């Protein structure tokens, strides 16, 4: 499970938070409600997750209720593997 959250964290840092100190992005940092992921970024992240983990994420899951933190995204991904 650790490698899943690490991969998500790495992707978010490189794509949406260039230059940010990795220590500042934790498993509970709000992503969508914290304006780190806007709608376009969320779509990009979903595409990355589907490709990387060979899963399908439903449109209704790609929102702040299911994907607002790395912990929640990890849980969502794990449940589909």
């Amino acid at each position, binding site marked *: 499970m650790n490698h899943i959250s690490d991969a998500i964290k790495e992707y978010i840092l490189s794509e949406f*938070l260039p230059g*940010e*100190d990795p220590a500042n992005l934790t498993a509970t*940092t709000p992503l969508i409600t*914290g*304006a*780190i992921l*806007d709608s376009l970024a969320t779509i990009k992240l979903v595409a990355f997750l589907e490709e990387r983990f060979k899963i399908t994420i439903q449109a209704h899951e790609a929102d702040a209720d299911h994907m607002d933190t790395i912990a929640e995204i990890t849980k969502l991904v794990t449940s589909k593997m």
Partner: protein
Amino acid sequence: MSATGLHAVLGQAAERHPDAVAIEESSLDERGQVRSITYRELDRLSDRVRDRLRALGVRDGDRVGLYTRKSIDGVAWIFGALKAGTAYVPVDPTAPPPRNAYVMDNCTVAAALVERRFEERFRAEMQALGRVPPLLVIDEAGGGEGLRAALDREDRSAAAPASTSAQSAPGDLAYILYTSGSTGKPKGVMLSHENALSFVDWCSETFSVMPSDRCSSHAPFHFDLSILDLYLTLRRGATLVLVADDLGKDPQRLAQFIADRRLSVWYSAPSILGLLAQYGGLERLDLSALRLVLFAGEVFPVKHLRLLQGLVPRPRYFNLYGPTETNVCTFYEIPGRVPDDRTEPYPIGGVCSHLQARVVDPDGHSLPPGKEGELCIAGPGVMQGYWSLPEQTERAFLTDREGGRWYRTGDVVTEAPDGTYVFLGRRDRMVKRRGYRVELGEIESALYRHPLVREAAVIALADTESGVRVKAFLSCREGARPTLIQLKGFCAENLPAYMVPDLFAFVDALPKTSTDKVDYQRLKELT
């Protein structure tokens, strides 16, 4: 018959208060004395300029350039130019010489006052453009001494015959102020004697300046704030205190200067007031003489205004609004103290009594109060047009059915029920993002609310993927930069998602134009 026109302001004051000090400079002479000039002396010195200009062949209706640092010499030249029936054209002595040569060549100045330090480059640049006008060169601007010496020198070779001052008609040009044009070339805003006098009369009725007042001249003469400084002060027989360019940018020295010179009326762009509040050490100074603080030119971030008012509570504070093309056209007195929880900038206020205002849709139709539209201004304060740019002049105006000319400010406002206007943004600083209309200034004012942010400026960049990307430039208090995650989180709490900047960049200080406004062009070049 006595002279008519803007220059009559000086003649009348010189009759009433001949021995009062008209102008004082910030710099001291070699004996450590304050350099100053009385109304009588200024009137006399500008008479000599008038006569010399005419001896140089300058005719009524010509343009005359000013290329010196701010000084008594410069003010005497300005009044001399007006008395000779010409329009004066001041340039920014800190601007690149090719730009200044472009300006003087563009409006074909018939003569110019130039300081020795600028002369060689200026001559070469004018030569390259094909024509060098007669130049009166002074060794150093300061105290009027350089100008007197230059006039003496000219008189020794050929005396200038005494003449009388021009009877300027209301529509005659009084000055041309060049502002940055959208094409990259500066454009000359032509203002007449009536434009200037109607504005000065309004100022005189609205701000009760008295002979005992000591008024600041912070803005350079090529900036339209200088019109209020010069002519309101002299019309009321008060003393104008010229603030040198370098002093005007240094908040600590400037704050001390305001206290030491007992300034009572201050007028500047908000940015320097914000710096004075943050770094001026105002709490240690006696600013009890200050009774009127006027600001104009851009939006004053509320948190800096609150800080300033907290440190200097006594004066009345006025937000003045208007482009160079109309000078001040609306004004708003800040009512009492800024509440702690206020984050919205103050309104730009109601229209000045010598002008009329209306709000129009993109087709030029009037809109009722409450609707967003472009502010248009008519009346005797509105410019004659842009120098030798008939098409741009025509585009700048809307003509109503009765033939009235309305200047389109390019600023989007709404009219509140009480008749005051609320500034929403520049027409050209509004971008569409994901279908929403975004005013970049609104993002800036949200960023200003962050406790670590000292200055914020936002630009829009074209982007192939998303159409437009919004980039924020921030300068922060030393060593206390928020992280990207913190900034985004802060934006999420204060802005709708479609307004959160895509990119953040930190700078030590925002680049500024010579008129102390945020230099958005430079910011775009930084990216």
